[in-house]
């Protein structure tokens, strides 16, 4: 069931009604059940991966927070991060990595046919894996307390409004809200429904309409003129913005109706006057995650290299951003290109 389906249009008001009728102490459980049903409705078999990552996250965070010895805490963090990352690496990158290996063996004279189909990717795995890692690092850094409620941790990783495409939420923003789930307020409902309406407009009336045109052009590039390709290329960023930006507004709206506040993902990105400013306004939750958990630790570790430490950290961060967006050399190149542009900006304006 997607948010743009007719099924959702009648299920959602009924759910809001039920949410407001149950006693406050059962609301977290109700949200978790709704989130799990939402997931099971789409992908019943790979639901198991969500349960596995949840268990790994909960017990790793428990271990890290109950150790006094820093070495044991670091060990717990490493095991937690690696074990939560393994399912993502396996499902998302297995075919990509296997084909790189096959191509390398081909150079050595060994003939193996490349893999043509990708594994079925568990829905939302790129998002809930990043949220799990963020939570573990926050517990390690003592920024967030270990959450003893298994239900809250499960809900944090599976909350149905954001599990499909984000925003990549933070434990520090969500656990407090899950503990205090009040009835929907009139203002919350009005604001939420307005956000949803605007989100549906962006998604259905702008993004999906532009996609019809752009898909047609990009699927037959060799038959198109230069001016047609230029127009399609200029329209594509608007399509992507309306798609993910509209989707985020729907997510924020649904959450608002439940009295829950979700971080925004966009802040008028096309008004940015530099590449670095653009990346502070575009897909904010992902960029903030990459900044906090990859760029900052890397650039801090390499701080004695001065500007070259910053450039190395930028290139690695955007390489990871590229590979996160998709398992192909096209995304790797895109990520490195962004890293290079930001490095140039950092170098010329140190």
């Amino acid at each position, binding site marked *: 069931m997607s948010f743009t389906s007719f099924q959702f249009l009648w299920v959602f008001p009924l759910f809001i009604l039920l949410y407001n009728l149950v006693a406050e102490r059962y609301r977290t459980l109700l949200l978790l059940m709704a989130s799990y049903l939402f997931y099971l409705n789409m992908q019943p078999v790979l639901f198991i991966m969500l349960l596995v990552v949840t268990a790994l996250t909960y017990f790793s965070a428990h271990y890290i927070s109950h150790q006094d010895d820093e070495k044991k805490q670091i060990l717990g963090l490493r095991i937690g991060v690696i074990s939560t990352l393994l399912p993502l690496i396996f499902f998302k990158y297995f075919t990509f990595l296997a084909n790189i290996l096959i191509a390398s063996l081909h150079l050595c004279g060994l003939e193996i046919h490349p893999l043509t189909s990708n594994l079925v990717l568990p829905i939302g795995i790129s998002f809930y894996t990043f949220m799990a890692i963020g939570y573990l690092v926050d517990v390690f850094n003592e920024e967030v307390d270990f959450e003893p409620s298994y239900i809250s941790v499960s809900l944090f990783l599976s909350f149905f409004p954001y599990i499909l495409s984000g925003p990549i939420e933070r434990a520090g923003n969500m656990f407090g809200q899950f503990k205090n789930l009040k009835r929907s307020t009139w203002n919350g409902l009005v604001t939420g429904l307005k956000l949803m309406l605007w989100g549906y407009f962006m998604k259905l009336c702008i993004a999906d309409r532009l996609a019809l045109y752009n898909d047609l052009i990009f699927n037959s590039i060799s038959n198109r003129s230069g001016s047609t390709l230029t127009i399609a290329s200029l329209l594509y960023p608007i399509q992507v913005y309306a798609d993910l930006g509209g989707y985020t507004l729907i997510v924020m709206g649904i959450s608002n109706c439940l009295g829950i506040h979700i971080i925004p993902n966009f802040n008028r990105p096309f008004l940015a006057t530099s590449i670095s400013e653009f990346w502070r306004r575009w897909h904010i939750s992902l960029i903030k995650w990459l900044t906090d958990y990859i760029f900052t630790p890397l650039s801090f570790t390499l701080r004695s290299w*001065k500007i070259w430490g910053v450039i190395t950290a930028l290139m690695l961060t955007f390489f990871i951003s590229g590979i996160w967006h998709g398992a192909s050399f096209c995304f790797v190149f895109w990520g490195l290109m962004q890293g290079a542009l930001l490095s140039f900006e950092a170098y010329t304006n140190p």
Partner: protein
Amino acid sequence: MEREAIIKKLQSIIAEVVKLEKVELTEDSTANDVKGWDSLSHIAIIAQIEESFGIKFKLRELAKLKKVGSIIDLIIKKQE
């Protein structure tokens, strides 16, 4: 070192890194209050603080340095 003296030293360090003539800080100031203090300049500021005060921060301490007041607390703790 007194908190007042540390804050004055921080003002000159940050002004130098973000290339501003003058920076006014209070204990509650954050990176958002200073033009040019972003994730790119943050590490340069941290490295400059380490050099000027002769201290070393740990990676896990970075997450706690959200306000100028917390930076001062940590500098005093490290100098003790």
